[in-house]
């Protein structure tokens, strides 16, 4: 891992319009991602964790250009992607690829595995036509499938094998960054380990950088170097993985860690069980988004601006409890300006 930043996400926002008035002006907004900033270094695996509806997949989709950000910058290798025209933006699609969650829905059932993997190579003119077949076999071998499978259709494969095909398709264009959107949550336990190991090996082999999106902290732990925890469109905590798992500071991170069932029946821990459900992102609570469910709630949380503050080196937390830790990022930016 180098110090060079590959992806720099700054104050990213995505609002969906839920209701419009007579004049077409939005009257109700769903704030899926609300002012999120993080950086991913070259060769790093950054884990993004949160429950359904927290905006983690929306971030992934904005990075691969499936959604247009409402506001904010996505700086990839020094270029601000959000400022580019549609045509120029397209050139970067090759460098940033996505692996989808559902291996049953993300492969075209009418195309053979070989055609599915060859398509991005042909669209991007990466190889002369007569070499494509060889390249497809190479890619299939990379992900642990036999090259002879290339004439088969997706329905002939199991979930784990299909996910491997999805990975081969992402690798086909030799990307620099891969956004993995819950790549193992649809798979059986024994197959999950296989796919996680494969992703780990490929990262070494092809010098890849990952944005790894998942809903459980245990899956992310193995593969990521740094982890960010999201709740209702906001980042709550970012830390190197060792630090995050040993010394979680935000109460939400503590609750998420505590909710993972332990695999030791002698150690049925007293869990932190959060009350209630995640509030709707259409009318999120004022102040800290987590305050309606937080077990360490105190006065002032309702008016706390959820800004990440660096509490210890590389450990950023957005929580009223650590307000004294120093100036927030926003204030930093102001000073620099």
């Amino acid at each position, binding site marked *: 891992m180098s110090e060079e930043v590959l992806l720099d996400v700054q104050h990213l926002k995505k609002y969906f319009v839920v209701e419009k008035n007579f004049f077409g002006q939005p009257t109700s907004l769903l704030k899926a991602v609300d002012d999120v900033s993080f950086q991913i270094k070259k060769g790093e695996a950054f884990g993004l964790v949160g*429950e*359904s509806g927290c905006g983690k997949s929306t971030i992934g989709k904005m990075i691969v250009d499936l959604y247009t950000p409402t506001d904010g910058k996505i700086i990839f290798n020094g270029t601000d992607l959000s400022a580019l025209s549609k045509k120029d933006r397209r050139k970067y699609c090759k460098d940033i690829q996505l692996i989808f969650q559902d291996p049953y829905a993300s492969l075209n059932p009418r195309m053979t595995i070989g055609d599915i993997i060859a398509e991005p190579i042909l669209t991007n003119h990466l190889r002369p036509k007569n070499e494509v077949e060889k390249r497809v076999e190479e890619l299939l071998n990379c992900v642990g499938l036999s090259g002879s499978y290339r004439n088969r259709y997706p329905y002939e494969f*199991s*979930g*784990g*094998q299909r996910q491997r095909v999805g990975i081969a398709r992402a690798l086909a264009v030799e990307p620099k960054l891969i956004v993995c959107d819950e790549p193992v949550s649809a798979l*059986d*336990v*024994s*197959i*999950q*380990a*296989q796919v*996680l*190991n494969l992703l*780990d*090996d490929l990262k070494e082999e092809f010098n890849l950088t990952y944005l790894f999106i998942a*809903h*459980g*902290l*245990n*899956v992310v*732990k*193995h593969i990521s170097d740094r982890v960010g925890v999201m709740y209702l469109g906001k980042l709550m905590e970012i830390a190197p993985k*060792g630090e995050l*798992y040993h010394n979680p500071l935000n109460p939400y991170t503590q*609750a*998420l*860690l*505590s*909710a*993972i*069932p*332990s*695999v*030791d*029946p*002698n150690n*049925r821990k007293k*869990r932190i*069980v*959060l009350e*209630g*459900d*995640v509030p709707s992102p259409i009318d999120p609570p004022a102040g800290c988004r987590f305050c309606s469910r937080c077990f360490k709630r105190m006065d002032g949380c309702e008016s706390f601006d959820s800004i990440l503050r660096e509490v210890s080196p590389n450990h950023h937390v957005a929580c009223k409890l650590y307000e004294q830790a120093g100036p927030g990022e926003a204030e930093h930016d102001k000073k620099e300006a």
Partner: protein
Amino acid sequence: MLLEVKNLTTEFKVKNGTVRAVNNLSFGVNEGEILAIVGESGSGKSVTSLSIMGLLSDNGKVASGEILYRGEDLLKKSEDEMRAIKGDKISMIFQEPMTSLNPVYRVKDQIMESILTHNPKMDKKEALKHTVDMLRTVGIPSPEERAEDYPHQMSGGMRQRVMIAMALSCQPDLLIADEPTTALDVTIQAQILELLYEMREKFKMSVMLITHDLGVVAEAADRVVVMYCGEIVESADVKALFEKPMHPYTLGLLKSIPRLEDESTDPLYMIRGMVPNPLHMPQGCPFSDRCDRCMDICRKKKPELRPVGDHLVRCFLYENGEETK
């Protein structure tokens, strides 16, 4: 013993032949215990529960065996007799709280339906009161108002609570929970597991918990049955199973879970290959192709389920009652 399944075999007719989803399965559920049935997709764990409830699809049928509930064979009961048992004595909650509630009826009507069916003498007012009480018991805030909601107005966790309220409304002796937390977020999963545990204490019922998540098993179960390809490969008390897993499959499953305590960056342990096609089962032990400790005999003969210490194990490694090194 509350429920005893004896030599249950369930088969499905498919285009290319007959698939035996559950093969000669025997186990029991004691009064007041939580029995977990663990296995991956295709291991037959859900088919087992559907066979007990008599909910198999048209192409499936119980080929042989007995399902004894308090000594009476459920398979010999008529449809009317089964209807009186289902939802009253034995009830079930499903994996998908999104699809298992009827979207066009209010929550209260759906819960009242099951109460009124099994207590025909009860009047509607009383049934509604009972419904609201049940919703309160499962931890739904302001139950009087939420009872008027339609399912789409509730979150996944809430809907699962409604399912649990419905299943418990007639105070069953046995609750079959088929992957009750799989579709839910981790923090909501913790809430629902806690609730199941409380309800078990409160209503003194037995629970058959079907899951693929060994974490959930370790948290909630008293006894565990591990299934692979329609057969039991190991069964034991929960502590014994996690302390000393014997069958290579159980061991592999346990080792392949990413653990929070694990600090190493080594690759995760993985069980190689995948579950065999049910139409082309290997001749010997169904796990032999994926097993790290496969021996010659494993490919030729099928091992029997035999007691080893306080476990039941189906593996040639334990042929002599102890582990062959």
